[in-house]
C-alpha cells in the first residue's frame, strides 16, 4: 500500500482532477500542465495518481516497461518466452537539475568498472514508459533537458548514442508539468506538447479550507486508517477509468461536432492542428468517462478552455488571460445555435 494521500480525499481542484483522469483514459491527449501558487496541492494530486491508476501488464524483469509482444525492447526480443506481471502504472519524478545521463540513461559505470562489460543503465525516460512523467517547476527546467523531452515526446522513442552505447527503446509517457507562473514562462514548443492546461488556486471558501486541513490532519495521524477509508472511492474512479478506456472506440464523433470544434479553433486562432486533435480526443475521453456515447455542445463548453487556452499565439506582454478569451469565444460560438 502506498503512503500517498488518496486522490478522492483531495478537496476541490476538480479541473485538475478531471484533466488527469482524461489523460489516464487516453494517454494520446498528451499531458497536463498545471499552473498555480505554492501550497495549492498540485504535487499532492500528482502523487495520489499512483494509487488511482489501474494496474497494467508488464514484462517481468524488463527495465524499459515493455508491455506487448509487438513493441519490445532489444533485451526482451532476445528472451525465449515472455512472462507478464501486473504492476501499477509508473509515476516518475523528473527533478530539476537532473543531468542528461539521468534522463536518457547512460553506461552503467558499476558494471563497466567491475566486470568490464558494457551495460546500459536506463534513465528516467525508460522508467516512465507507459506511465506518467512529472516535472515540478517545469518552467524552470534547463533548456537542453527540454530539448531532449520534446524530441522523445514527439517520437515516442528514446535513442541513446553515447559512451559507446547505441540503444533505442520506446518511451511513451504522459507529461505532467506544474509551476508557478510568476517565476517564468514556458517555451511555446513545450507548451504545445501539453494536452490540457489548468490553473489551480487555493480553495476560496473557508469551509473547504477547513476540510483540507482536517483531512490532512486525519491522514497524518493514522495514514493506514485514512487510506482504508478512501480506498473504495479511489477504486470506483479506477473502475470508471478502466471502463472508459474500453469504451473509447464506441464514441461517435459526428460531423457537426467536428465542425464546431474546428470553428472554435479557428475563432480563437490556435496554432496548428494539434488544438483540434486534442479537443476531439479529450471529448471522446470525457464521453467515455461519463458513460455517454456522443459528445454534446455542453461537453465542448466544459473542456475547450483547457485544451486551447495555452495554444494561442500571443503577445508576450499581453496580460489579459488567454483563458478568459477562449472562454468568451467558446461561449459565443456554442450559444450561437
Amino acid at each position, binding site marked *: 500500500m502506498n503512503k500517498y494521500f488518496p486522490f478522492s480525499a483531495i478537496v476541490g481542484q476538480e479541473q485538475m482532477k478531471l484533466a488527469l483522469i482524461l489523460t489516464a483514459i487516453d494517454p494520446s491527449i498528451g499531458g497536463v500542465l498545471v499552473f498555480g*501558487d*505554492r*501550497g*495549492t*496541492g498540485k*504535487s499532492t494530486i500528482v502523487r495520489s495518481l499512483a494509487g488511482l491508476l489501474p494496474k497494467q501488464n508488464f514484462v517481468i524483469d524488463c527495465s524499459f516497461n515493455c508491455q506487448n509482444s509487438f513493441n519490445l525492447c532489444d533485451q526482451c526480443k532476445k528472451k525465449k518466452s515472455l512472462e507478464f506481471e501486473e504492476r501499477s502504472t509508473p509515476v516518475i519524478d523528473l*527533478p*530539476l*537539475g*537532473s*543531468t542528461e*545521463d*539521468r534522463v536518457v540513461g547512460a*553506461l552503467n*559505470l*558499476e558494471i*563497466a*568498472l*567491475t566486470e*568490464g562489460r558494457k551495460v546500459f543503465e536506463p534513465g528516467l525516460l525508460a522508467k516512465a514508459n507507459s506511465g506518467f512523467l512529472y516535472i*515540478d*517547476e517545469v518552467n*524552470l527546467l*534547463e533548456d*537542453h533537458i527540454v530539448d531532449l523531452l520534446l524530441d522523445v515526446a514527439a517520437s515516442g522513442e528514446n535513442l541513446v548514442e553515447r*559512451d*559507446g552505447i547505441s540503444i533505442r527503446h520506446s518511451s511513451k509517457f504522459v507529461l505532467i508539468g506544474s509551476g508557478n*507562473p*510568476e*517565476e*517564468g*514562462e514556458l517555451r511555446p514548443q513545450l507548451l504545445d506538447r501539453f494536452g490540457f492546461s489548468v490553473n489551480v*488556486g*487555493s480553495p*476560496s*471558501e*473557508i469551509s473547504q*479550507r*477547513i476540510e*483540507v*486541513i*482536517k483531512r*490532512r*490532519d486525519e491522514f*497524518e*495521524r493514522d495514514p493506514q486508517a485514512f487510506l482504508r477509508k478512501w480506498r473504495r472511492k479511489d477504486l470506483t474512479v479506477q473502475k470508471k477509468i478502466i471502463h472508459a478506456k474500453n469504451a473509447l472506440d464506441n464514441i461517435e464523433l459526428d460531423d457537426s461536432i467536428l465542425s464546431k470544434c474546428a470553428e472554435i479553433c479557428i475563432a480563437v486562432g490556435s496554432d496548428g492542428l494539434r488544438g483540434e486533435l486534442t479537443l476531439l480526443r479529450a471529448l471522446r475521453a470525457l464521453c467515455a468517462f461519463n458513460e455517454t456515447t456522443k459528445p454534446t455542445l455542453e461537453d465542448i463548453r466544459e473542456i475547450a478552455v483547457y485544451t486551447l487556452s495555452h495554444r494561442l499565439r500571443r*503577445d*508576450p*506582454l*499581453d*496580460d489579459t488571460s488567454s483563458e478568459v478569451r477562449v472562454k468568451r469565444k467558446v461561449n459565443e460560438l456554442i450559444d450561437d445555435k
Partner: protein
Amino acid sequence: MTNKIDFLEHELDVNALIQGILTVSSIDPSLGSLSIKANYSTLRTVFLSNLLSLLKPKRLKKIYPFQNPTDFVKNINMVDTLTFGTPKYNEDIFSSDNIALILTNTEKMEKGLATFLRNKIKNNSNKFFIALDESESNEVPRENLSEYLIFSINLDGTRHKDLKKVSINRKKISEAKEKLAAVQVNKKILDYLIASAEMFSISNMHIIFTTLKVAKSLCAYKGKKSVTREDINLAISLSMIHKAKQIPEFQQEEKVATPEQEQSRDDNESKANETELNSEDKKMLIDALKISLPSSLIETLLSKNSQSISYGEAAGSGERNNNFSVGRPIPSVNRKYSSDKRIDLMGTLTKSIPWQKIRSSSITKNRKIIIYPQDIMIKRFEKQSERLLIFLVDASGSNAIGRLNEAKGAIEILLSDAYAKRDNVALISFSGLKADPLLLPTKSLVTAKKKLSALPGGGATPLANGLLEAFKLANSARSRSIKPIIILLSDGRGNMSLDGVGDRVKAIEDTTFVASLIKRNAINNIFIDTSRRKTPIANELARELNGHYFQLPMANSSSISKAVQRSI
C-alpha cells in the same frame, strides 16, 4: 541559572524563539526546519554552535548552494571505486535519521537543488534543516525554499550580549511526545486558524497545516488535551507571521497592490462575512502577537509590507559559463574528480591505455583495466550566461511631464526584446526622496509591464540614489554570474543628494560619484536621455558612466535594441 527563559511566558526574542523552536521540533520531529537570516559573523557562529549543542544531532552535514542533488542520493563514488576496484557508494544522507543539515548561502542556491531540498523539507521526518540566508535587504530569498522552512530567525541587530544560554526541558518534551497523538482540535479552532491565515494573506495550505502542527505540539507540551486559541496565537508567531504577505493593522496605504492581492480581495468581498474574523477576534490576535513579538520583528515585517515588491524568481543562480554539470557539451579536461563533476569515460580509458603494461606489473593481474585517479577526464559543459536588464526609470516631476510615457514606450520595446532573449528584467524607479525597487529580477515580463504602467510620476529627482540602487542590484546579480546591464532613462538632472537633501550641487557630486562607481566596476550601461535637447549635465553624466548614450527623440526602437545587443 539565574534568569531562566521560558518561551511560554517570555517575549519572543532570539533566545526564547530558539527555545520554542527546538521544543516544538523535538516534540514533532517533522517540524525541524529553520531559516537563519544573518551575514557571516562570529555572532552567527556562536549562535549556531549553541543551537547545535542543544539539538545534539548524531551527524552534521553541510550542503553548498552549487551542489547537485545527485550528490545526496545513493550514487557510485568514482574515486573510491577506482582505488579499491570494487564499487563504493556515496551514502544517501536523507536515509539517516537524527541528522542536522546546514544549507549554506541559500540565497544563491541552484533552482534544482532548492526544489529538491524543498521536497525533502515538505516530507521531513527526524531531520533538522538549518538554512543560512545571507541575502541583502534588496535581494529576495528563494521563496521556493523559504516558504517551506517552518521557522525563521533574523539575527540582524542582535548583539553578543543578547545571546543567553537557553536550555530545553527534555523531560517535559518526552512527556509531550506521548501525548501528541491524543491532542484534539475542534472546528472553532480550525476556523480561527484559517481566518488568521486569511488575515495575513497566506494561501499556501502547507503553511497553514504546519502551523496547526506547531500548535498541537505546544498544546501537548503544556500537557493539555485540546488546542486553544493561545496555542494557535503562539504557533502563528513562531511559524507563520514571517511569511505574511500583509500585516493587517499597518495597512494604511498600499502603493501598488499586487494582482494576487487584488484577486484575493475580490474573492474576500463576496464572502466577507464568512471568511473574515470579527473585529474583536482580530484585535485579540493582534494584541496577542504584539505581546509575544519583539518590536524589531514587527518593524522588519512593516518594512517588507511597505515595499510591496513582487516576489518573482530571483534571477538565475550561480550560472557559470563553463561548468561541469549542465549545458552544451564541450571537450573534456583532465581534472581532479569530485562528485559535482561527471567523468568522460571514453576519454579516461583512452588516457589510461598507454600505461596499462607498466601498471599491470605492479598491481594484481586480475583487474582488467587499471585506471589511476590522475587518468580521469572530466566532462565539461558550456552554458550561455544569463543577462539581467535593470531598468532605472526617472519618475520625477521634471521628467514626468510628457516624457515618462515615451520612456515607458521605449522600455516596452526593450521588454519584448528581452522576451526573445529570455533575459531577466528588474525595474527600479526613483522620485521624491528615494529609489524604489519596483520589481526584483524576474522573467515574468507581464509583471514587469504591469508595474511599469502603474508607475506614477512627480516629485524631486534622487538620481544618485537610483543609480546606487541599480549598482547594488547589478553587483548582486554578478555574484550569481549573471551579466547585468543598467538601462537608465532620465533627463540626468538630479536634485537630491544621497542622504536625501534637496541640494543641487551636492546632488550632482553624488551622482558623479555613483556613476564613477559603475564605470570602475565595468557594469554595462545605457543612458537614454529623455530631456528635450542635449544638456551639459546629461553629457557629463554620460561621460562619467562611459556606456552607450542616446537621446530619446533620436533613439528609435531598433537603435535602442541594437545598443542593448552591442553592450553584451
